[in-house]
């Protein structure tokens, strides 16, 4: 455990996690709307936004899957110290974190049960860029239509077809975050 493990959490958890949650709530309630998150300094390769999302939403009661480069000793140690989430394989995860490529195939993740669709995974997808250019999003939370630089469309269309089951996504890039719940319809431009 190095010194970095002990740092990079919230300095004032009750206030910072409340502020972060409001941004995440807005992101999930308004798919495609890009919000800013601050207050954490997680170890590489995690973005600040991904670190803040983990600190805000996960704890010892939420099994977590780290995919690809995110599954490294500094991140595991940081998670163990600040969050205490049990690290699990993809199918058992309530939350998963990694790049879109590392999370493949996303069909591994829990999509809930027909009578309990809430028992599904939330994917925190690390992105190289996050802008409002890309596939078209429509559905609850969107007044007419919006656009987001999604890594693809097919997987999200397949996920939408499972509704009300399905996984939900948070896209993170630097200090930016956007949400894509299962309810959103995605169409290529």
């Amino acid at each position, binding site marked *: 455990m190095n010194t970095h493990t002990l740092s990079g959490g919230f300095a004032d958890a009750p*206030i910072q996690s409340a502020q972060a949650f409001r941004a995440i709530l807005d992101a999930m309630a308004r798919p495609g709307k890009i919000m800013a998150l601050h207050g954490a300094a997680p170890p590489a390769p995690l973005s600040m936004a991904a670190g803040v999302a983990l600190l805000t939403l996960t704890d010892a009661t939420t099994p977590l899957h780290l995919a690809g480069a995110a599954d490294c000793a500094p991140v595991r140690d940081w998670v163990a110290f600040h969050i205490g989430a049990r690290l699990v394989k993809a199918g058992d995860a309530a939350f998963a974190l990694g790049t879109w490529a590392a999370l493949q195939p996303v069909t591994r993740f829990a999509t809930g049960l027909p009578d309990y669709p809430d028992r599904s995974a939330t994917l925190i997808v690390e992105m190289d860029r996050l802008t409002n250019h890309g596939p078209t999003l429509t559905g*609850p939370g969107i007044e007419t239509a919006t656009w987001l630089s999604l890594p693809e469309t097919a997987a999200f269309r397949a996920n939408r077809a499972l509704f009300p089951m399905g996984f939900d996504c948070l896209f993170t890039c630097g200090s930016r975050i956007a949400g894509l719940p299962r309810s959103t319809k995605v169409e290529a431009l």
Partner: protein
Amino acid sequence: MNDATPEPAYNFAYLDEQTKRMIRRAILKGIAVPGYQVPFASREMPMPYGWGTGGVQVTAACLVPEDRLKVIDQGADDTTNAVSIRRFFARTAGVATTTRTADATLIQTRHRIPETPLHAGQILVYQVPIPEPLRFLEPRETETRKMHELEEYGLMHVKLYEDIARHGQIATSYAYPVKVSGRYVMDPSPIPKFDNPKLSDSPAIQLFGAGREQRIYALPPYTKVVSLDFDDHPFTASKAAHVCDLCGARASYLDEVITDDLGGRMFVCSDTDFCTDRQAHGKRGRLSAPISGGAA
């Protein structure tokens, strides 16, 4: 306005961080599946079950220090339970409070949606007593859960149809069931059906908390919410056929106030902020004091 100084003995917004995270996760799943009731491990709060513990927990999980909180019960800011809940958050979260709908960033409500249209920066939190719209048709949770799974809402339509057969119209005047985004039938909490149209396509986030029944559900902004009806008996948002006796409003929901024991009564807006604001702008009703030179 600020009701009191925050109490350092409790965590920000009363609940511990782990509880808030649990509630926040439930809220996000509720947002992702509009109208679906997400089970959550409701905690005992310092106010009784049935008095808004679900709404209070949702509010506690959402509040930030920068918020301006408005709490209404029956549309009024000064009803005793609204006063009590507003004070609770002023004490435990130190947030500013307001009675003005337009200025509030988070509004907790019992039984009404404000008349003033909500905007995108706002969250409306409803207190919900019985979240299950099918509960009075089928008391068993194990059964109603299956009905939601299978989208088997025939029982609800039968109930509404029986109303029509018996009374010539649908005899549900509040907690009128709605269908959300074409999927889940949802209880909008015991708001008068007059308020139902405001549920749909709102720019604000709407969150519903049922503490005793351990359920949270949500409507993201701009979600289609349709009141259940029949082609030959379309839904109508009704109210008393009067105007407000204090501000003259024609299109607001009215309370009937008995003024004597000889049948005397007056009708006033149930939304006290809406009514006060109209009066401040010179609007007058049948029983208003005449406008004097100075302040009213």
